[in-house]
């Protein structure tokens, strides 16, 4: 252990929900997108699921809102070391979209892409089973543009760069393809509980 002389750190408040190497950001919600925040109105937003599916489909704002509402209440974790507790997002479970397109048995991974062209790759298993959402509300208010509004992907059990802002679609694949940060040295899966921050972790 490489102890830093004179460093004591914050009081060790016991936080069972805090993954290793993370700190509680409290009320802060840092914005870290690498691109210009797009000027995207709900009326111009669409979400498409295609690739290895039986029935590729695009939803517009109203069609997506006609699906059963589903909310996430819990924590989120950013690779830059902040975690945020007790957030509430509302939208639709990704399971509802996937049920409509019927993924092929061969589909194992997905690339999520944004209206800005941002991409991130995920195992399909991380997007199913009630663990991923398309969300448009935060704390009962419309999701702010800088946080990915009008709608973003939410995969809260992985580092938050996987939760693509300004979500435009998912392409289902039978193999893994690195997305934007993954091509820039970040980990392929990004599980905060295993501290999968960078490739090789």
């Amino acid at each position, binding site marked *: *252990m*490489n*102890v*830093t*002389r*004179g*460093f*004591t*750190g*914050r009081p*060790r408040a016991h936080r069972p929900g805090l993954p290793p*190497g993370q*700190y509680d950001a409290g009320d802060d919600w*840092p*914005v*870290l*997108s*690498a*691109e*210009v*925040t797009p000027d995207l109105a709900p009326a111009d937003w669409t979400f498409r699921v295609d690739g290895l599916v039986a029935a590729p489909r695009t939803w517009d704002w109203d069609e997506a809102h006609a699906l059963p509402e589903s909310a996430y209440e819990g924590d989120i974790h*950013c690779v*830059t*070391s*902040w975690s945020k507790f007790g957030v509430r997002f509302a939208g639709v479970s990704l399971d509802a979209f996937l049920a409509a397109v019927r993924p092929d048995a061969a589909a194992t991974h997905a*690339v999520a*892409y*944004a*209206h*800005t*062209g*941002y*991409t991130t*790759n995920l195992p399909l298993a991380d997007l199913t089973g009630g663990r991923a959402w398309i969300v448009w509300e935060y704390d009962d208010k419309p999701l702010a543009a*800088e946080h990915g509004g009008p709608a973003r992907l939410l995969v809260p059990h992985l580092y938050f760069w996987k939760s693509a802002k300004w979500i*435009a*679609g998912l*392409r289902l*694949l039978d*193999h893994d*393809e*690195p*997305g*934007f*940060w993954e*091509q*820039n*040295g*970040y980990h392929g899966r990004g599980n905060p509980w295993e501290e999968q*921050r*960078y*490739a*090789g*972790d």
Partner: protein
Amino acid sequence: MTETFTPPTRFAVPGRIAVSNRAAALWQTATLTEIRRETPRASTFRFAVPAWAGHLPGQHLMLRLTADDGYTAQRHYSIASAPDDDGHVELTLDHVDGGEVSGWFHTRAEPGDEVQVRGPLSGFFAWPGDRPALLIGAGSGVVPLMSMVRHHRARGLDVPLRLLVSARGPEELIYAREYGAETLPVYTRSAPEGVPVGRLAAHHLASLLAEEPEGGWEAYVCGSNAFAEHASRLLVRAGQPVDRIRIERFG
């Protein structure tokens, strides 16, 4: 060879360089060799990292402090120094109110202290010195941009480079003594005699974008989220292509 999916949407800014995953995975000991005050709130910390793999201007590293009970705190910091600094890297850190890591640096750290670093990380905000660079930073957001200015100068590069740096006043302008003709400071609260006070505005960008060099500017924006939103909107309105704007926001 890994395939790369290209989305059917207008593409975001592509990465600039291939990143060494091996360097990023390894924690190394960095020994503090020098502390230089830059402003009342910011100091530069120079480290010896003998096995440093080298970096490009604009890249960052992750730094970790460890308490004697094993508790650790880690943060990402942009690298301030130019690449050709043989086994050394420099970071310039603001003293953040209540900052767990920056607080240690500003109140306890002394030459000889050891910390852990891993990196360099991320190729997205890197500038290899190839394309004309339009750099826009505020506060300590100038740190990764200064690495680019220093690289440009140290290598005697011909490629155009301009820096717009916003600070509250002259006493808070980091690296004030180092700037040359490539830099225009913008003061938001107080300015030297004869220099206007005001926020970064369209007119600051207009002349730079008008003299667009061959191949166009690659814009690098760094600062708080509020500044990054403001500056990137100004750039888009002034005609800078969205896919030629790279943003690094504090968080």
